[in-house]
């Protein structure tokens, strides 16, 4: 049986390129995701996240490059029922009820979950018999989640899954996802919410202008930006003098509040205290994922949304 062959990558993207007119949406992208990994695709608008996902699913043809899911072409993997997806561009007919939608999706697969199970897991049970067009944004998203889940996929691809959800729905959604991934399933999701990447992903892939600019655990990404912030209250300090201290990259001064972004916070702190022994309220903090995100993605002009 082909199934007994060891498959070492759930997702393998090699040299992927896609251009829309003048815009390079995805530019020589290489990505390998092992089975069981939960990966967040993070990046500003038009970073190429959606295009990458659509190519990965076989919905968009790349200009060049190779795509394999579980060692087979994307379309084949979909036909084998290995892939479930929530897409921004995918949708359902308003006249159908949530239950009918999940039912129809289930019927396309030889080995689907029970419709009621998928509906319960996604938290759709209460409004399963209402028409899709009458549901709230968050309820629609959950219906889409149920529809993605019902084929019991080995790989789930989610493009901004919680986009229209309120805080509580979002928590419930991720709780349902955690439940689902404990079985060793692979998940790739794109999000704008850094907290979701931080809380849920094993691995974060940061994209900008169609390229991967950072790839690793949240800690590794933050470490890549390499720096800490010193905050303190200092009387009579000048901003130029502060910026000139050893180990300091940039300095900000608001009244007496000093904020120093440092490449070497130890050296900077010693120098600061030597010059201003009365400095108080001192804190040294590591970069947050948000700081790293800004540092890694925001230094060039943004491209148009594609």
């Amino acid at each position: 049986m082909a199934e007994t062959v060891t498959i070492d990558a759930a997702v393998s993207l090699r040299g992927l390129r896609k251009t829309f007119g003048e815009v390079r949406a995805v530019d020589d992208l290489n990505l390998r995701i092992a089975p069981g990994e939960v990966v967040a695709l993070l990046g500003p608008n038009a970073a190429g996240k959606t295009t990458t996902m659509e190519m990965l699913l076989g919905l968009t043809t790349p200009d060049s490059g190779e795509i394999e899911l579980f060692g087979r072409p994307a379309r084949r993997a979909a036909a084998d029922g290995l892939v479930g997806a929530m897409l921004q561009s995918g949708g359902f007919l308003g006249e159908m009820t949530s239950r009918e939608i999940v039912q129809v999706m289930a019927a396309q697969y030889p080995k689907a979950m029970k419709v009621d199970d998928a509906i319960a897991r996604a938290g759709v049970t209460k409004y399963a018999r209402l028409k899709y067009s009458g549901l709230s944004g968050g309820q629609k998203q959950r219906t889409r989640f149920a529809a993605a889940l019902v084929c019991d996929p080995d790989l789930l691809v989610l493009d901004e899954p919680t986009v229209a959800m309120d805080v509580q729905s979002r928590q419930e959604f991720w709780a349902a996802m955690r439940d689902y991934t404990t079985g060793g399933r692979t998940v790739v999701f794109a999000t704008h919410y850094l907290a979701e990447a931080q809380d849920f992903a094993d691995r974060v892939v940061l994209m900008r202008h169609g390229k991967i600019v950072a790839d690793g655990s949240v800690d590794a990404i933050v470490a890549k930006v390499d720096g800490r912030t010193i905050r303190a209250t200092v009387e009579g300090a000048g901003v130029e003098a502060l910026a000139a201290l050893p180990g300091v990259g940039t300095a900000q001064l608001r009244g007496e509040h000093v904020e120093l972004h440092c490449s070497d916070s130890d050296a900077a702190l010693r120098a600061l205290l030597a010059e201003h022994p009365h400095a108080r309220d001192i804190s040294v903090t590591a970069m947050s994922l948000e700081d790293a995100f800004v540092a890694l993605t925001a230094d060039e002009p943004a491209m148009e949304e594609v």
Partner: protein
Amino acid sequence: MGALIWTELKVLSRSVEFLVVTIAFPMVFFLVMSEVFGSDRAGGLDMNTYMMISMAAFGAMSVAFAVGPRVGLERQAGWNRQLRLTPLPGWGYVAVKITVAMILALPAVLLVFLAGLLVKGIELTAGQWLAIVLSCWISSLPFAVLGLLIGMAVKPESAQPLGLAVYLPMAMLGGLWMPVDILPGFMASLAKALPSYWLAEITRDRLTGTALDLLGVGVMAAWFLVALTLVIGLYRRDAARV
């Protein structure tokens, strides 16, 4: 595929407008039109029978042109994209659409014939009834594909108007509204290139004992094949879409 067909039928059957306007109107037209033309004879048949078959043909066509352009709405919603992520093959999607149109064409045809039998007292043998039902139904196949073609070819909001713009002239010039004999000569020749003309003509031939007109079969097969080829081409274009 069965589940998809069943769901589409269920969704459409919830639409009262669809049921009344598309499926029942041809029967109403038949009852009105047969009064208009009175008791003349046309094409070797009495006028009631002639109009019954014309209106059944019109009904079969109407349904096909109402169902197909709905694909535009599905493309807009992203439903076909969602289905492309499933094992359902492309030809399966096309087959589902054609099947749904064909299934719904049947009640429209049957209603007209039922009105002919019960209201107009048209007397035919059971074999003749069966022959005209089958002929009318099977001949509506090119229209099911044409409707689908319109739904796939243009923007969703243009699909319904374009559907009307194709199907009304086709019904008119095909002689479904009035016998082709009373149309001017050049229009009568044009009619012979239309599947709508042959849909009714071949069905009427079942009653006059005329042999199956191979020209008619050829014309309908040509429309069917050309439309199907275009549908497949457009589906592929959609599939490769950015």
